[in-house]
């Protein structure tokens, strides 16, 4: 029997949770000196106390959302949010009136106006017969583009960035976006925007977060309208995965590369945003982290996509991933610390480290020798200096043959010749670009400084080397490469017969490994030359259905194995050619230590996409693998198998099998396959790393005997 004191009522539990998670942290914050803005935020939280009480007794995500908000307030107590524009207050929600219900049929309500409508999509102007309000109506071939634009708008509004007042409506049985006219607003073109940049900058991080690359439009059109001094972002159609005009663009779910690209003057937005610095970004990211917690983003996404929408789930997760990236990089600085570590020699493979360290040693020795050389010949250097010859007289590109050669010139030439003896030859410093690191840059910096000092005295042209720029370039390249790898999925294609064999062996592995383990080449239909028998080829950014069957045999629908590139490259070695030729981690041809590629069926990082026309056949086959009370669906889930709709691999009309070219041209089957794989694969968080040589060679065909690389993170 339990004693009374061990009984905790649900009410008491809630109360203690509220106290631990809400009251105590707030009290801690209040005991420190606060700034006005932070105090206001504390009051905002207190006003939400009843809701917090509900959240804390409800879902975990609610608690996390609240924890995030709380941490954010704590961090703001030492951060001042001052805005350089009085017209826009970042963080203060903008509320607009609703003219229609969600997706209301307005066909009868609106009257088309005879007014020219600009823009790339199908559009017209209309007036609401009852209210007299005018709307700019636009629709797209892809409904999703209208929805993402509205979601972007709602996020801007939540953060206090002015946009047009838009709603999703039905007109003539189609989905349209009705945008309330901003009466008497003027378009702002790029030249004017530069002058108004301080107000626009308030929304810079949001533009980047939403990947709204065409936020300002192009030179000839304008997506910004000005009314009473306030600038409105009226066309946010280029947000998320969509391009401003048509089609889709690369959109990272784990990082936010637009934070750099939108500041690059090569791009339209960069002309306005070029001077936005890390401090401004940090403040905006802090505020965004505070306001846009998971719950808020989910609520906004549900208001556009409805409840339980998979697309909304993906968008919410992507926004969280992108916010986390920005937070790590600009607020905590963790991302930058990662980059510094990755830029160091210690992040390279051991054999490459040895190579780099040798070169650093050569450069350090040469630096010392140059300094010594300068000391040993100080008398001659002094003499040259006293002669005060103009350095221009002996520049190598001058016609020195015809100029008079005096004793000092002779001495200078002799010194140059002697100097040439001690400086390392170019081939001694030869190292491939990917082995660059901060230690090498520092060694080069010291070496060039010493060398330039002497060269200057001898009237020689100096070597231009900016160490700071070199480090920045290196770290930003590592960042860009990491983003690229994190975005990528790698795909290996085979046929249904092979799939059955792979399921039987429980592994997707190289031909050599198949023979080693099963006594025969069991799983690869496509004939492999013996030179390629230690690898499994994965394509990057494409899927090649042709590999479903060997040459000269009728093609069969493709079975696609998909692995995130980050996992592939950090767990195996890859030789890059048209894709990644994956080998085992210890695959080293030079010392005959061979370890081939092999991944288990059911590994969380491996998705298996099977053409739906094989579903019945495969399910019959899967019965032999059933464990205890497992269902067929259960085993499919365990083995991470999903069925591809016919549209992914067959032409809708003729039924012929799609080729690589079809997938590239049509675009959507490829995206559908990747989307399917992403829905199975776990959501990996952003991993920084660099693709670097391992020091081993891959042995494909002789012409492909290239160094193997790995993603070192």
């Amino acid at each position, binding site marked *: 029997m339990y004693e009374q004191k061990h009984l905790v009522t649900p009410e008491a539990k809630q109360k203690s949770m509220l106290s631990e998670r809400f009251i105590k942290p707030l009290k801690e914050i209040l005991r420190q*000196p606060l700034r*006005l803005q932070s105090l206001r935020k504390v009051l905002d939280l207190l006003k939400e106390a009843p809701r917090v009480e509900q959240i804390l007794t409800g879902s975990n995500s609610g608690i996390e959302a609240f924890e995030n908000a709380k941490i954010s307030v704590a961090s703001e107590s030492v951060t001042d949010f001052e805005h350089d524009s009085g017209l826009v207050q970042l963080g203060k929600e903008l509320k607009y009136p609703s003219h229609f219900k969600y997706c209301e049929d307005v066909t009868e309500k609106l009257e088309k106006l005879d007014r020219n409508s600009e823009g790339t999509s199908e559009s017209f102007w209309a007036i609401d017969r009852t209210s007299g309000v005018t709307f700019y109506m636009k629709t797209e071939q892809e409904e999703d583009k209208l929805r993402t634009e509205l979601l972007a708008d709602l996020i801007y509004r939540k953060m206090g960035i002015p946009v047009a007042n838009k709603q999703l409506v039905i007109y003539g049985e189609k989905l349209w976006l009705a945008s309330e006219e901003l009466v008497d607003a003027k378009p702002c073109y790029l030249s004017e925007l530069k002058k108004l940049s301080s107000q626009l900058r308030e929304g810079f991080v949001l533009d980047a977060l939403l990947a709204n690359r065409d936020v300002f439009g192009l030179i000839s059109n304008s997506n910004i309208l000005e009314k009473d001094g306030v600038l409105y972002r009226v066309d946010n159609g280029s947000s998320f995965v969509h391009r401003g005009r048509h089609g889709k663009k690369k959109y990272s779910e784990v990082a936010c590369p637009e934070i750099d690209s939108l500041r690059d003057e090569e791009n339209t937005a960069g002309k306005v945003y070029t001077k936005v610095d890390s401090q401004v970004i940090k403040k905006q990211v802090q505020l965004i982290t505070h306001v846009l917690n998971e719950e808020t983003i989910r609520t906004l996404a549900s208001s556009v996509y409805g409840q339980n929408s998979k697309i909304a789930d993906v968008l919410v997760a992507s926004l969280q991933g992108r916010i986390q990236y920005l937070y790590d990089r600009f607020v905590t600085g963790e991302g930058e610390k990662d980059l510094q570590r990755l830029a160091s020699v210690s992040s390279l493979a051991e054999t490459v480290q040895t190579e780099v360290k040798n070169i650093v040693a050569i450069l350090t020795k040469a630096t010392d020798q140059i300094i010594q050389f300068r000391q040993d010949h100080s008398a001659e250097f002094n003499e040259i200096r006293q002669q005060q010859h103009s350095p221009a007289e002996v520049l190598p590109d001058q016609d020195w043959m015809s100029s008079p050669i005096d004793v000092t010139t002779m001495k200078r030439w002799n010194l140059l010749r002697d100097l040439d003896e001690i400086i390392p030859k170019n081939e001694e410093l030869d190292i491939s670009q990917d082995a660059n690191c901060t230690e090498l840059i520092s060694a080069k910096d010291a070496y060039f400084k010493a060398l330039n000092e002497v060269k200057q005295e001898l009237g020689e042209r100096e070597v231009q080397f900016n160490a700071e720029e070199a480090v920045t370039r290196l770290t930003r390249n590592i960042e860009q490469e990491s983003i690229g790898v994190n975005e990528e999925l790698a795909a290996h294609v085979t046929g249904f017969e092979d799939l059955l064999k792979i399921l039987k062996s429980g592994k997707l592995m190289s031909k050599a490994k198949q023979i080693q383990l099963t006594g025969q080449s069991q799983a690869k239909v496509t004939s492999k030359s013996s030179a390629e028998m230690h690898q499994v080829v994965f394509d990057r950014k494409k899927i090649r259905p042709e590999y479903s069957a060997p040459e000269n045999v009728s093609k069969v629908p493709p079975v696609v194995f998909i692995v995130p590139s980050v996992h592939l490259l950090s767990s195996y070695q890859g030789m890059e050619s048209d894709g990644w030729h994956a080998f085992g981690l210890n695959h080293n041809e030079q010392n005959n230590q061979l370890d081939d590629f092999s991944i288990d069926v059911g590994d969380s990082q491996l998705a298996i996409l099977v053409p739906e026309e094989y579903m019945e056949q495969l399910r019959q086959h899967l019965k032999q693998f059933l464990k205890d009370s497992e269902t067929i669906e259960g085993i499919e889930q365990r083995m991470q198998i999903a069925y591809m709709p016919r549209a992914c691999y067959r032409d809708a009309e003729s039924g012929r099998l799609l080729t690589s070219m079809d997938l590239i041209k049509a675009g959507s089957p490829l995206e559908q396959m990747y989307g399917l794989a992403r829905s199975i694969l776990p959501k990996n968080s952003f991993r920084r790393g660099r693709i670097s040589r391992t020091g081993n060679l891959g042995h494909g065909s002789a012409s492909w005997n290239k160094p193997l690389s790995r993603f070192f993170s």
Partner: protein
Amino acid sequence: MVNEEAVIKQIQTIILRILERFEKGELTTEQVAELAKSIEVMLENKIHSFVSDK
């Protein structure tokens, strides 16, 4: 002379007292929210008066 910093400090103390009363069970979350709204008005009035004085 009363300045912005002093007002902020004073309000922090008031909120701390409210939270303590809540912990003792003397106030509900709804009452805390209502008090927060009143304090907000008071705070904004005080701050506004500083701005006007300037």
